[in-house]
């Protein structure tokens, strides 16, 4: 199967994000619509129900480097969150602690990362973790 070049993939993802395809719990889009390199992205995760994250919206920043999608994007939280895979001083997501980043594949996309993080929030170990006040940022 032919490799999908970086920009095609990102264009595809941009459209998906704008049209809101997916389960609707995660949203993402270019942080600057004029950025022709499509490197910097915003993402939001709607906190999963029946957890401490319920009804919270977490904002993230994702940076797709030149090597994307061969190399996973760097992901960091803007909203403060207490999760084992998130660096508590910078908000960066530790790639080694998030399955989809450590086992990254070309077919994965930004949505994969966001849904995986959301699943992480809902996991039995993390769902009751005390969380910082909503609205605080890193």
């Amino acid at each position, binding site marked *: 199967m032919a490799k999908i070049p970086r920009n095609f993939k990102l264009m595809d993802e941009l459209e998906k*994000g*704008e*049209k*809101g395809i997916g389960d*609707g*719990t995660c*949203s*993402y*889009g*270019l*942080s600057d*619509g004029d950025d022709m390199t499509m490197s910097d*992205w*915003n*993402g*939001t995760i*709607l906190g999963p129900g029946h957890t*401490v994250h*319920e*009804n*919270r*919206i977490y*904002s*993230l920043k994702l940076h797709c480097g030149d090597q994307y999608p061969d190399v996973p994007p760097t992901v960091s939280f803007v909203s403060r969150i207490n999760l084992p895979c998130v660096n508590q001083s910078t908000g960066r997501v530790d790639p080694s602690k998030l399955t989809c980043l450590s086992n990254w594949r070309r077919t994965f996309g930004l949505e994969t990362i966001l849904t995986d993080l959301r699943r992480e929030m809902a996991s039995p170990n993390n769902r009751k973790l005390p969380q910082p006040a*909503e609205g605080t940022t890193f």
Partner: protein
Amino acid sequence: MEDSDIATVQQAIVLTIRPSSGPTFTTAISTENTVLQLKEKLATPDLPASSIRLVYSGRVLKDEDPLSSYSIKEGHTIHMVRSATNRANEQAVQTVRPLNNSNAPTDGFDEQSFMSTLLENPAIRDMMANPEVVRRMMMANPHTREVMENNPEVAQMLNDPSFLRQSMDMARNPKLMKQALRNNDRALSNLEMVPGGFNHLRRMYHSVQEPMEASRSMPEPSTDDLNAQFAARLNADTRPQAGQLNTTALPNPWAPPRNQSQPTRGSMFPGFGMGGSPSHGMTGFGALSPFGGLDSPTAGTPGSQPGNTGAHGFESPFGFMMNQRTNGSSQNQFGFPIFNNDGNLSPMGGNNPEMFQQMLQFQQMMRQMQQQQSTSSPPSYSGFPPFGNMWRNSNSNINNNSNTSSNINSTTPAANSATSTATTATTITPSATNTTATTNTIPNPSTTSTPGSTLPPPEERFQSQLASLRDMGFSDNQRNMRALLASGGDVNSAIEFLLRM
């Protein structure tokens, strides 16, 4: 002017709104509008604009920004999320409750956590929600009523539904309870500071709190009688001698409770010279079960001298009969003296009419058996050929003559050990409490097992025997089982037992 109008119209776009729950819908709005205006457009009576949050392309839209600043275009999707702040309080309450419950045991408030779980029970909650019920419950306690009569202010308080509801809420929530207790302590210490406050507190304590607390405790004081009852319930038969080292093993409180319904048990068996020992473990007939004694760890102790067994407790008619025989007293009198003497029955029958009836039935059956067997068998065991068989089988001296068991008759110690072997081999241990007033005087053995026994249930153990009995035409499984249990699994004697029944 016109140009700008056209511009606005041209800027109007159709957006897809995707709520967190429910179907998506579309709305048309000009990109010149601010986010707040969009929210107002989307607001519904139960979802005001202030609690709507909109997310687009990974960003939470800010109220004051115009939609154009987010470069939202025709057909794009905006996620609509209900704001957390709206439900924050509700959610906080919901999360606090389970947390409290899980914390309660670690705080050492076991009773409280029990209380709270009890009060969480919907039925109890419903009941407690009705102040009238609570009031009636309180009035049902004579002590509380007394307090209420003596103190009109207390009565007023307890009649106040809101106070009752509040206290119920408090009892339900351990945190609240602790808070209230802390407040109470603080208030008390404040009161003490006031001149005369201490006296007032003392008066309050004597007139209200003390009687209230007394109403919770047991009205009866501790008596020897009550203590004896408790001791019996714990199988503590012997009372340690004062001034002596107590070397006897502690009683096993988990052992099946022995029948303790004969306060005058000693006097019921005048013929056996053991009426004088109130501490021995003789508990009548093990609730009239002929097997009752097999249950007891002391009955039929191998090698125990017949004369001494009184101290070990004749808990079954067997132990009883054996000693009766070896003591050489009234060999021909098959039954128990108690059955022949109505006067002696009264202490038992008076206590428990059901028991009385069972005893009579038992007696009848024994008489019947005796008549049937009286021709050919030695007197002591004539009534119980199956039991005789049981002993014989466990002694591994199997002979087909079910009416005689010569080796048992020859030596009592042998018989005694046989009894104990039978106990382990068959584990027929109907517990005293399981005896029901059925027409069969032998209690249903299927409900019985030795505590700690690892043997499979009798249905399993006697499966093959049961099957052969069924093949022979004995269709009543329950009776078959009973017979098999009585015969220790020997089909032949089980058949005899069945024919006799």
